[in-house]
């Protein structure tokens, strides 16, 4: 059998049960497999070609190139309001169906105090309900210590692949931190691959967007080089 380890490239059909299930048998029930892995006949089989990742020896998933978003509960997404009905907005989040956003799903919203959002506006929201057979439901209600949801004004939207968006969302993403040291900016990264950027001027926004797009296929070591050239272009 080919020996596969974490952070290795795996191909569809590979059997990774010996890595995922290693350790005590009784702990098996605590292990969770995510996208790209499938349990068949007590074996864990890879079903998408990509890189095998794990977290806390407990969660396992495959990171693979993907552009079509499939809603999952508690994801933060950025969407564009596509239509308005009497009770809810329909929001395009890049999934196969438009997601619904009820008027009441905003902080401090009541029946009389409706949010003022028009078709074409951009919102950041959290997925409340995601089922394979129904439209997913999103909500903009903010709780204590949650990030700020709701309408995003000005700024610019870019689209990236889903795995890259997830990589950027990790707290240890060097790129965003280093860009932030050069120029202040606001950013919302949706799990659906839509990224909203806002900064003081148009030029800086474009430059940040391009830097993020270019960094997708770069190694971690090359990022300082990219940031350097980015800074150069800003300072001239």
């Amino acid at each position: 059998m080919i020996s596969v380890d974490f952070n290795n490239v795996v191909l569809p059909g590979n059997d990774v049960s010996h890595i995922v299930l290693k350790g005590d048998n009784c702990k098996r029930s605590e292990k969770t497999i995510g996208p790209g892995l499938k349990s068949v006949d007590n074996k864990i089989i890879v079903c998408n070609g990509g890189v095998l990742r794990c977290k806390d020896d407990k969660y396992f998933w495959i990171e693979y190139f993907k552009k079509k978003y499939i809603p999952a509960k508690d994801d933060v997404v950025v969407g564009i309001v596509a239509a308005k009905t009497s009770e809810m907005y329909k929001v395009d989040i890049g999934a196969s169906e438009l997601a619904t956003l009820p008027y009441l799903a905003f902080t401090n919203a009541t029946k009389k105090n409706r949010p003022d959002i028009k078709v074409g506006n951009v919102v950041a929201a959290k997925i409340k309900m995601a089922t394979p057979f129904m439209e997913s439901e999103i909500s903009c209600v903010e709780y204590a210590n949650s990030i700020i949801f709701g309408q995003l004004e000005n700024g610019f939207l870019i689209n990236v692949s889903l795995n890259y968006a997830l990589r950027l969302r990790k707290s240890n993403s060097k790129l965003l931190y280093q860009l932030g040291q050069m120029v202040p900016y606001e950013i919302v990264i949706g799990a659906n691959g839509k990224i909203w950027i806002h900064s003081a001027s148009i030029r800086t926004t474009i430059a940040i967007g391009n830097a993020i797009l270019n960094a997708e296929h770069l190694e971690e070591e090359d990022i300082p080089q990219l940031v350097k050239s980015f800074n150069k272009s800003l300072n001239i």
Partner: protein
Amino acid sequence: MNGNPLSDCEKTFILEAASQKIRLDGRKKDEYRPLKIAYGLDWGNCLVTLGCTRVFAQVSCEIYQPNNSRPNEGVLQISAELAGDNKINDLTKINQVLERFYKDSKCIDLEALCIIAEEKVWKIKVDLSVLNMDGNTLGCCSIATLAALMHFRYPDVVSTGEKVVVYSSSERDPIPLSLHHHPVIASFAIFEKYDFIILDPSLLEDKVCDNKLSICFNNHSEMCGVDIEGCASLSQNLLMNCSNQAASVAIKLVDKIKSAIQIDIKNRSSKSFKGLEPAVSEDNGLKLCLSDKIHFVGPSNQENIKEEIDEKMVVDQDDVIKITEGTAFTASHNNLHQISKKGDKNDDLIVIDPESSESSSSDESIEIINHYKLDDIRPVIGKYVVSDDENSDTGTIILD
């Protein structure tokens, strides 16, 4: 569902960028994206890549009964379709425009395609499949059409009395189509409010702009057709500028296609000819899209523009236009001259702008005339000033 809906964010952002005359990918306003033309194994089979827009063209021919109205002419048919998803009805428009420009300009010698009058003619079919839409689809389609038509060869046919013999390529060399001239379309997106006209718009620019102007020119700088989409009112002066640019773009595009064909014919003689395979594997689809947008736009983007200058086409406007078919233009042009002469005498509202910096056309045959708007009239006519000098008796009004 119409692709991705356009958000307010993107719209206002692009308009704001247009007001500052910036393009998102760091191009100049008259700069084309890198153009690649790759030919396949068959005659008349090519893949054209313009930035991220990709169009695949295939020309085919069949023997066909001619129309009754034109019994001794062959038939040309152009059809474009979106690969995969046909719900976006954008392409019917492209079909119409392409057919109109290529049929009406009579670039193909259709009479040469006749085998037996009233019975058998060649029907030339151009099938375009748009593989990726990233703006300027019409321009890319027209390049693909022309590149495929110039490359195409049809089998030799001999008719002996009642018998028609079609020779296969092994028996006799197939014959290239006879083209009188090579028309190609250049597309502009016009942001009227900001007086910002850009060549080769990207998808977002295409969606946001007020007006889309497509001008078809051939390699002899003769106009073959104009298509205007949108509601902005265009001045003659602007149209002349655009057609100037389009003419020089067309010459460069046709040159590029010709050199691509020469390279292809050279490759064909060598045995290791692989057709489209290297072009497709090299591009590798979506990854290329991202790496193409490598330009940063900082306060000055000169530093970061990659040295792809020989690949990209910067339009120079030293060429003089001959307008053969659109006589309306020349007529109006004369009118403008007359107006301008009048204007000089009377210090009227119409003045020849000596700078004409934006238009940057250095033609001597065409002068740029700027119509002053209402706000600008005052300095020309003069100011009314109430003088309080003691010399003048009372507060008289002096024409400054």
